[in-house]
């Protein structure tokens, strides 16, 4: 593209009230008589011409004109544009690409051979305009969800000309949730428009005060030159909202802390087994996590290629697979390496460190050094609001996941015969052997279990962090901290340790900043170990002495 069309001298302000005027015109027509497509087609042609010009500014105008034209295809066309499905030909004709890859005429909606077309490109400004326009157009959509987003869009646009449409929509609206959204939108519009009465404004302010979220705050704060009484009310609302936010922020920090803690827990849980229970200082633990993450990547690649239908469930397949992959690698490591080093924990540190180097490089050779893209399934992306809290789905699932993993692990150790044997071996190897437990295999399986759990942690981490050969390195230290803090060989300790560290960290961060917070946590940990040389929950009995 040349420099000319991008010269950012877009008279955007002009465009804006441009929109308003046209929108107003359109809604008046719409309101007076439920007129179908207007007889005069010029505006539509102008719009099409503008849309197919290939320059952002004119595309922007095109959107406005299209809306103003009141063409019945407007919603469809703008919708297509929003999803990047609107194409044009130099001869100023528009086409909408269907999901099956065929095209339909943008105005006719009938299938057509598009030939050599280019996509109509948009930028943020145009996106904003489209949101507003579509919002207005979709207030009457049959689907509740669509109306909901529409209302929200109108709220964000706060465009006075949308008022009549809003009022009509409100009358027809049945769904309570959507209704409130629309009322909030209406409040915004009232406050934004020049000619609303003071009483309405005051009412509107209180509506938004009730909404009380960050957007409402932003909108209220943005309002200028209101009548004194209203301005006062706004100020009051703002302080009220901020005060509420203050309270919520505590809960929010706790949530952040929990989610960080659960991540730490996942990373450390495996180590609590290999290091805590077996006493193997496993420096390659991080790499087990990393391998888990790469397994997730591989699974997604495979499913993308072969079973795209079930792609959304890819993680559900990845979890057990990651467990098996990392687990079996763990078993191999134990059989070939660790078994020779029992009673020499510090040697295991060296060997496993070497191993971690090898594993990292291996992954680098196989997958390449750069990050791999692990998708977040729809059901895990986005966030939900709980009062003043923003709960991101991926982290909520991770908290849940870590809880499940922990519970499963506990159960496995307590109730399964394997768990029984494991505990037997770790408590008194010779006795266990004497009782006919095949200790070598128990060792192998225990180590495999620990590694497997690390692998599952990898699946979770792939949702919030880099999937790169260095993934493991960034968690290994924290993991050791957690295990030691909690008390080696004690899962509850590990859990409590992880959560404590997470929450402390998250409460310090806003005060001290991310770096200092981490430093403080580390220092606190060092001091804590002075008070409790064996962590929060030390193991009892003579065995510990050595």
């Amino acid at each position, binding site marked *: 593209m040349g*420099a000319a069309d991008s010269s*950012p001298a877009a008279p955007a302000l002009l465009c804006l009230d441009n929109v308003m005027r046209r929108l107003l015109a359109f809604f008046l027509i719409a309101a007076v008589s439920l007129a179908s497509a207007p007889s005069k087609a010029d505006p539509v042609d102008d719009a099409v011409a503008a849309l197919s010009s290939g320059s952002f500014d004119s595309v922007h105008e095109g959107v406005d004109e299209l809306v103003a034209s009141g063409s019945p295809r407007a919603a469809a066309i703008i919708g297509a544009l929003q999803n990047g499905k609107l194409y044009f030909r130099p001869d100023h004709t528009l086409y909408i690409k269907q999901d099956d890859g065929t095209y339909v005429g943008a105005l006719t909606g009938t299938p057509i051979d598009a030939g050599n077309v280019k996509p109509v490109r948009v930028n943020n400004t145009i*996106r904003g305009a489209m949101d507003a326009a579509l919002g207005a157009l979709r207030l009457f959509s049959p689907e509740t969800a669509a109306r909901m987003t529409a209302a929200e869009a109108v709220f964000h646009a706060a465009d006075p000309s949308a008022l009549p449409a809003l009022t009509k929509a409100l009358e027809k609206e049945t769904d309570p949730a959507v209704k409130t959204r629309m009322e909030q939108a209406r409040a915004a519009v009232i406050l934004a428009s020049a000619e609303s009465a003071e009483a309405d404004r005051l009412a509107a302010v209180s509506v938004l005060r009730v909404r009380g979220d*960050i957007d409402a705050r932003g*909108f209220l704060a943005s309002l200028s030159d209101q009548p004194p009484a209203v301005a006062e009310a706004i100020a009051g609302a703002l302080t009220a909202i901020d005060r509420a936010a203050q309270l919520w922020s505590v809960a929010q920090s706790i949530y952040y802390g929990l989610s960080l803690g659960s991540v730490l827990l996942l990373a450390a849980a495996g180590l609590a087994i290999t290091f805590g229970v077996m006493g193997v200082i496993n420096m390659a633990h991080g790499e087990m996590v990393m391998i888990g993450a790469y397994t997730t990547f591989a699974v997604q690649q495979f499913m993308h290629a072969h079973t795209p239908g079930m792609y959304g469930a890819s993680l559900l397949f990845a979890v057990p697979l990651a467990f098996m992959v990392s687990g079996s690698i763990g078993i191999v490591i134990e059989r070939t390496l660790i078994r020779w080093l029992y009673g020499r924990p510090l040697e295991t540190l060296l060997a496993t460190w070497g191993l971690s180097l090898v594993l990292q490089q291996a992954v680098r050779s196989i997958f390449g050094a750069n*990050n791999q893209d692990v998708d977040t399934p729809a059901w895990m992306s986005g966030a939900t609001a709980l009062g003043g809290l923003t709960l991101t789905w991926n982290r909520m699932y991770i908290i849940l996941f870590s809880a499940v993993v922990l519970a499963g692990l506990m159960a496995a150790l307590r109730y399964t015969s394997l768990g029984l044997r494991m505990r037997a071996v770790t408590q008194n190897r010779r006795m266990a052997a004497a009782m006919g437990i095949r200790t070598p295999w128990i060792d192998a399986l225990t180590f495999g279990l620990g590694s497997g759990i690390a692998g599952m942690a990898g699946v979770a981490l792939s949702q919030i962090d*880099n999937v790169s050969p260095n993934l493991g390195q960034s968690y290994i230290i924290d993991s050791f901290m957690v295990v030691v803090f909690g008390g080696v060989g004690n899962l509850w300790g590990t859990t409590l340790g992880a959560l404590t560290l997470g929450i402390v960290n998250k409460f310090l961060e*806003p005060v001290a900043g*991310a770096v200092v917070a981490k430093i403080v946590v580390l220092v606190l940990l060092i001091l804590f170990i002075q008070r409790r040389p064996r962590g929060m929950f030390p193991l009892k009995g003579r065995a510990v002495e050595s």
Partner: protein
Amino acid sequence: MAITEPTISRRGLARLGAAAATIAAVGAVKTAAAAETSGTIKVGILHSLSGTMAISETTLKDVMLMLIEQQNAKGGLLGKKLEAVVVDPASNWPLFAEKARQLISVDKCAATFGCWTSVSRKSVLPVFEELNSILFYPVQYEGQECSRNVFYTGAAPNQQAIPAVDYLMKENKVKRWVLAGTDYVYPRTTNQILEAYLIAKGVAKDDIMINYTPFGHSDWQNIVASIKKFGSAGKKTAVVSTINGDANVPFYKELGNQGLKATDIPVVAFSVGEEELAGIDTKPLLGHLAAWNYFQSVDTPINKTFIDAWHAYTKKPTRTTNDPMEAHFIGFNMWVKAVEAAGTTDSNAVIDAMLGVSVPNLSGGYSAMMPNHHITKPVLIGEIQADGQFNIVSQTPGLVVAQEWSPYVADTKDLIGDWRAPLHCGAFNVKTGHCTAGKKA
């Protein structure tokens, strides 16, 4: 006495001797090998292939190998074949210096292409100056440097940051700014410059929020939240991100999940390119921006041929290209041209010949090497698309000349770098008329 020292037996002694001998021999052979293959021109490649920076730098090694292969296909240089010498500084800064020394004094490389982080460049800089060799540095950086032995083919702050800010001001009417960066010299300097620039543009001090995070910061929950809060003050807000490499993935994932839409609070990044996006699910990031001097999506014939060659070379049709790769492309071609002009690979001759050399860049124009050892570049602003590519929404009409010394930093506003005769100075103070640093030896 067995406790402290095993006393070494004669046999042990012999073995020890043997070991030493082999090591020595190996060393000798290696230096010999280095000395002998004089039939080629050696090109050093100093990019981390392991450690934290491997993520970004490995690609640059590959692209250099490709460029050298292409040049050899064209018959090499000065009638000799080019030979790439690849070493791995392993993201370890002292090792960078050591390897630089090896490339120059042991392998006798005519020029070296390498480094990514500022610290690695700072670490090798003295070596290149001491041994008077040439380094091509391909990454956008903080400026405030102008060495005779380094050619900066990446962007200086004014070739990336300032145009991006201008764009947001004009296009999105941004009034309130979050400058978020990793706590090291590039973000620090860039933010320092931007802050000065914004205030000069009439932005109120409390409409600017500056936030620094450690390397590889992976938990962005409350930082993103605080950005949202900062953005709820009723003024259009944007984030200028100088967050470094690894930390970006979790940052953008958090952005996406907390629903920070580009239409509400756009984020413009200076360190996020196609390579980084390749590791992120970009659907939630639609419309967030990046400022570079090159995007893979640039629609020019020369870019198409470059990309095709790249895919052919790596045998990966999905492998992305990015800005530092273009920088190496430009730098390498400039070096070739300069060597041809000088008729020798001798550093002094080449350094002089480099000035004014102009070669095509991948965005359809020509980039020239200026007397300050930086190159002219167009500045492109791109919006992230669902496919992980950038939709170019703005491009400077002409080429931008790098300001190696920022006019927005008090101590450097009077400095210029000019390696032409008679000045021959990396930091010439136009007020005092003194050359404060980097005078030619």
